[in-house]
C-alpha cells in the first residue's frame, strides 16, 4: 500500500511554453513607462496645490514645475490610455483575464497571504497566479480605470461634468484621483519588490518564458 501525499500539487515547473504572449509583455512595459511618467508628473502637479499636509520631494517628480509637469501628464496620458485600451481589450477577448485572474476567493487570498508571510508560497510555476497575485492584478486594473476616469473628470470638469458629478464633484474627484494613484503606487512597491525576489518573473515578462 502506498501513501500518497496530496499536500503538494505536482505542477510542471517549466514546460517551455510561453507564459506571457507578446502583447502582454509589450503592453506591460509600455504601461510601466507611461505609469512612471504619469505618477512623477502627477506628483509635481499635486505640489502646486497639495491636498494634504505634504508635498512630494522635487527630486522624485517630473517636469520641473507645474507647466512642464502638465505637458508630461497630458502627453503620457495618451500612451497610458491607448495602451490600456488595447491591453484590456485583448485581455478580455483572448480570455486571459478570466483564465489568469478569476476566480478570486477571499478564503484563498487569506490562505495565500498567510503562506506568503511564512515563506510557504510556491513560486515553482509562475504561469499560475496565486490568489494574492490575482487580487492585486485585478485590483490594479481597477485602480488604473478609476485613475483614468477621475482624471478625465478633473481635466474637463465642464465638458464631462456628468462624470465629474459621478466622482462627487471636482474637489472630491481630486481625492479620488489621488487615492487611485496611491493604490497604484502601493501595488508598484509590492509588485517590484516581489519581482526582484523572484527574478524568473522578470525574465518571463521580458522574453516570455
Amino acid at each position, binding site marked *: 500500500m502506498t501513501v500518497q501525499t496530496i499536500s503538494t500539487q505536482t505542477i510542471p515547473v517549466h514546460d517551455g511554453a510561453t507564459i506571457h504572449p507578446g502583447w502582454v509583455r509589450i503592453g506591460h512595459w509600455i504601461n510601466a513607462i507611461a505609469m512612471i511618467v504619469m505618477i*512623477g508628473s502627477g506628483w509635481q502637479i499635486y505640489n502646486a496645490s497639495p491636498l494634504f499636509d505634504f508635498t512630494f520631494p522635487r527630486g522624485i517628480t517630473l517636469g520641473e514645475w*507645474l507647466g512642464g509637469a502638465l505637458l508630461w501628464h497630458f502627453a503620457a496620458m495618451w500612451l497610458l490610455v491607448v495602451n490600456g485600451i488595447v491591453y484590456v481589450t485583448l485581455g478580455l477577448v483572448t480570455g486571459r483575464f478570466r483564465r489568469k485572474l478569476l476566480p478570486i476567493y477571499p478564503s484563498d487570498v487569506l490562505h495565500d497571504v498567510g503562506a506568503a508571510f511564512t515563506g510557504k508560497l510556491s513560486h515553482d510555476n509562475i504561469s499560475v497566479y496565486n490568489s494574492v497575485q490575482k487580487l492585486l492584478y485585478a485590483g490594479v486594473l481597477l485602480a488604473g480605470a478609476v485613475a483614468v476616469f477621475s482624471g478625465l473628470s478633473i481635466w*474637463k470638469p465642464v465638458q464631462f461634468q456628468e462624470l465629474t458629478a459621478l466622482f462627487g464633484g471636482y474637489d472630491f474627484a481630486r481625492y479620488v484621483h489621488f487615492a487611485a494613484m496611491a493604490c497604484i503606487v502601493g501595488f508598484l512597491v509590492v509588485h517590484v519588490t516581489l519581482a526582484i525576489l523572484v527574478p524568473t518573473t522578470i525574465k518571463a515578462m521580458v522574453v516570455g518564458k
Partner: protein
Amino acid sequence: MKKRLIIPGVDQKLLIKDAAKLLPNPSRRLFLRGAASLGALTILTGCDIVDEDSAENVLRYVSTFNDRVQAAIFQPQKLAPVYPESMVTKPFPFNAYYSEDEAPEIDGESYKLEVAGLVDNKKSWTLPELYALPQERQITRHICVEGWSAIGDWTGTRLSDFLKRVGADLTAKYVYFICKEGYSNTIDMPTALHPQTLMVFKFGNEILPRRYGYPACRPSSATRTPSTLSPWR
C-alpha cells in the same frame, strides 16, 4: 490704467500666471530637468533615454495635438454648473505671483480699456461706459490650473456681447488680454464667446475689490481648466 484688448492670431503662451511663482528660472529648459526622475530607467538601459531636444519637441507636438482635441471636445452651448449664493467660497482665494498688497492700484477716474486688433471700433472704454453695459450675475466654480477650486459670485457683461459690440472679428483665433500687473494671457475664441465668460465688474454684488482685479476682470471660470482670472487693469 491702460489696458488693451487685442485680437490677433497670437500664439498662446505656455507660461501661466499661477505657475509663474513656482518657476525656478525662466531661462532654463523648463520641462525636462525633472526627467532625471527617469534615472532608474536610464540606469537599466544604460543610455540617456531622455534627449532634451527630442523630448521637448515631442511634448510640444502632443501639446498642439491636445489643443485640437480640446477644441473638438468643447461644446459651445454646454453650460458649467451654477450654484446657490450660499455656496460661494468665502473668502474667495487671492492667488497671484505677487502678494495681495502688491496688486496694482488703479484710478477708476482715469481708467481706460483699450481695444485693438481685428476690431471695427477701436475706441477706448471708460469705467462708466463699461458699467453701463448690460450685466448678469453668474455663480460658477472657478477651477485653477494649480488644482484648487472655489465658487465665485460674478457680475459683469458677457465677453461675447462686448466683442460683438466692438465689431470684433469672431473668426479670429484668440483674444489677448494685456493687464496692468504685466500678466498677459490669451483665450481662444470659442471660450471667449461662451455665455459664461464674463467681463466682471462686481464680485458678490460689490464693486470688484483691488485684490480681485479692480476695475474689471475676466474669469473664464465656466469652461476652462486652466481657467484664469486675469484682471483687466
